[in-house]
């Protein structure tokens, strides 16, 4: 019982950290910091999954934690960093419009997510039921991050962060997804990053920049 109580406290802290990182992603201007934040988000995800696995004694979840560690903390940040270096985009910082207003919008999203999650968390019986709201908020915030960005890499990171949120939600609500699905998603992510990386090169070839507003000129007149 005592063990479980401590685990709950720790999980709450981790969930709060997750939320915090989403806000940091929303407000940071630098590409490389965005990647670092993504790495931290993956680390938190790994820790919390491992904790749940430990508390519930589920071997499956250990596997998924290990997968998280490998993919989201080590592989993807490495690939993204490599991409940024190859593209020479380290210095391509964003010009964000009115950060306080963006944060306020983010806050409203959090309220929405928390409000929506309240009835769900009553139904869920897992020890992480309180964090469903946070997972939902992370998804929405990552979506907002994607909307607010104009650089291609930043958008991809937003997309990846959204997947983190989904994963977190799954872990909170149902002790994770079945192994097959998880493996599939992991593979999807890897492939997506590779394909998008190829796209980046193409976009830069074409427009000499990774700014996505150049794509607006592709519409038919």
């Amino acid at each position, binding site marked *: 019982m005592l063990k479980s109580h401590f685990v709950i406290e720790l999980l709450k802290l981790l969930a709060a950290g997750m939320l915090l990182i989403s806000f940091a992603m929303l407000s940071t201007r630098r590409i490389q910091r965005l990647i670092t934040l993504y790495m931290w988000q993956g680390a938190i995800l790994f820790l919390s999954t491992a904790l749940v696995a430990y508390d519930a004694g589920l071997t499956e979840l250990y596997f998924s934690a290990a997968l998280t560690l490998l993919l989201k903390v080590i592989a993807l940040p490495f690939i993204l960093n490599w991409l940024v270096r190859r593209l020479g985009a380290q210095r391509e910082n964003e010009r964000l419009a009115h950060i306080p207003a963006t944060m306020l919008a983010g*806050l409203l999203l959090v*309220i929405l997510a*928390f*409000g929506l999650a*309240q009835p769900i968390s009553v139904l869920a019986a897992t020890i992480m039921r309180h964090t469903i709201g946070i997972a939902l908020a992370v998804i929405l915030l990552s979506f907002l991050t994607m909307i607010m960005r104009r650089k291609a890499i930043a958008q991809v990171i937003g997309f990846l962060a959204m997947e983190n949120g989904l994963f977190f939600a799954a872990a909170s609500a149902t002790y994770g997804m079945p192994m097959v699905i998880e493996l599939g998603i992991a593979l999807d992510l890897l492939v997506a990053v590779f394909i998008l990386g190829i796209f980046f090169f193409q976009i830069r070839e074409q427009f000499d920049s990774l700014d996505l507003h150049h794509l607006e000129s592709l519409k038919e007149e």
Partner: protein
Amino acid sequence: MHSYSWVQSALATAAANRLATVSLLAAFWLLLAAAGMMRPHNIRYVARILFPLGALGALAMFCAAGSFLLSGSAPETMTLAVGLPDLPFHLRLDALSAFFLLVLGMAGAGISTFAAGYFRSGEGTAPGLLGLHYHVFLASMAVVMLADDAYLFMVAWEAMALSSYFLVTSQHRIAEIRQAGFLYLLMAHMGAVCILLSFGIMQGGGWEFTFAAMRGAALTPLRATMAFALALAGFGAKAGVVPAHVWLPEAHPAAPSPVSAMMSGLMLKTAIYGLLRVTFDLLHVRFWQWGLAALALGLFSGLFGAIFATVQTDMKRLLAYSSIENIGLILTAVGLAVLFAASHLPLFAALALAAALIHVLNHSLFKSILFLTTGSVLHATRQRSLGKLGGLIRYMPWVALFALVGTLAIAGLPPLNGFVSEWLLLQAFLFTPQLPHTFVNMLVPLGAAVLALTVALAAYVMVKFYGIVFLGRPREASLDQAHHSNWLERAGLAWLAAGCIAIGVQPQLALRAAGAVTGMLVGQTVAGSPSVWRIAPIAPEQASYSGWIFLSMILCVVAITFLAVRLLVHGRVRRAPPWDCGYRWQDARMQDTAEGFGQPIRLLFGAFFWMQVHLPSPADEQPRYRVHIEDRIRRALYRPVSAMVQRAADAVSFLQSGRLALYLLFSFLTLLVLLVFAL
């Protein structure tokens, strides 16, 4: 001895029958109004006799209403013999109306005293006429609060609007002032129509227009909501709630300063009175959504007013926007009270309502001080633009002192009164997470942050106002001609300033008076004070505030420090030119201007403004930087409507040919049509 007992018995009668006393005082004001017309051009007669008498009447009103509130008497009612054939005028004095009469009396006494010294001959309307409008205005406000049927209420309401219209346009030879007056009258009437419709719904099909009948009427939720919405719109238009605020910054600067003080300090409060009367007394159901709507409107008005006040360059416009802000705060408190009351949390509702009521009282005091001081400044310097004032503390020390009290009070700083109501309101906000509705319990606490932002912005505005008008160096050479205000003006200001300090350090009395009202409206009263020194609205261990300790402690420390420094070190002072980082070529024009103070706000809250910035090019011979700021809401909401009205008017203008025969023809045709349809 004989006369003494006569006075005693008269006082006893008055105490026993306060409604009659109060009505007689209103009638006394009407009498003064009529007396002004006897010698309308004699300034000494009007200013030195009638206005001081009016102030005495206000003082008596203050005493009568205060004693009614503190004695906790039952409501008194009276039916007058005059009125419509089957609807005589009903009067009623209960805690709610007594509280607002108290406000009227307290601020009215100060304003009337000031006005006695303020009005000069040769400024627009004849003094007697001004006295007529002024006292009718006072009396009609009193009757609004006493009315116990919709008919008398509307009559008094319209009398109030008309008399204030004439006061606003007292300098009617200036075209802008006529325009401002027209806008005011227009908005007042739109509001009145909404209020009338609201009463129409509330009578509930019985076609009885007494308030007693409305209290008993059973309304469906939809009808009740419609009545509330109409009342909110109508009273909101009178109070200057965004988006119906457009008349306020036009009308307030146009009016003479005592009238601005009266309109801002008292007339806006009649709208709050009406809203409270409808919401908490006449309607028997309340829904939390109403509270949410009022809360949102109030918060937005507050923030909007504060932001716009920061960019103003005319001191009276600045104060007018600040009035919008304060009305916003009051409406926020009212909304919160409705929210709590409808969620069955009556104690917190009482807390929010007490905050609203005390803020009504406070605002009537400090806003009157500020408007009146602008009057003194205006008379002394002939300048209204902040860009041409400065350094007046050295020429008008008394006015500057009273203005300082008003400034600190309106900025919501302890130990003055503005802080008390804002503190109570924040305390009420602390309990909003207990509201039993998802989303609402998360969103409404954020309102507290908006409130804090608004209040802090108000402090910014007031530093700007006071700093630019009274501190620094005179921006124009002519300002050293500025002269003192006369003793009547100072007496009026001193009375109001004393009120600000008294409520600030001893808020218990105000809280008790407000407690009588909350007891009547929501059936709960916030906890009494744990001791005479402090207030603790919910529980002493939860939060308490003591103005006494604040004031005495600061004064003690100041005194001790002063003496210690003098005794232990020295008290030598050398006068020298200002240093300013050693920069030699400085003059008064290099001080921050009103525009300079507005600049950070324009940058931060750019979304609120519609701005046109004109930047000079480097090659300009005479470079001028110009910013034109307009109100987005006004542009988006009012311009299209007025353009539409103009187009419609143009379309039917062919009817106005100027030929008499044609006009007669119109009348004739109308008559024919009526005959055909009627018979």
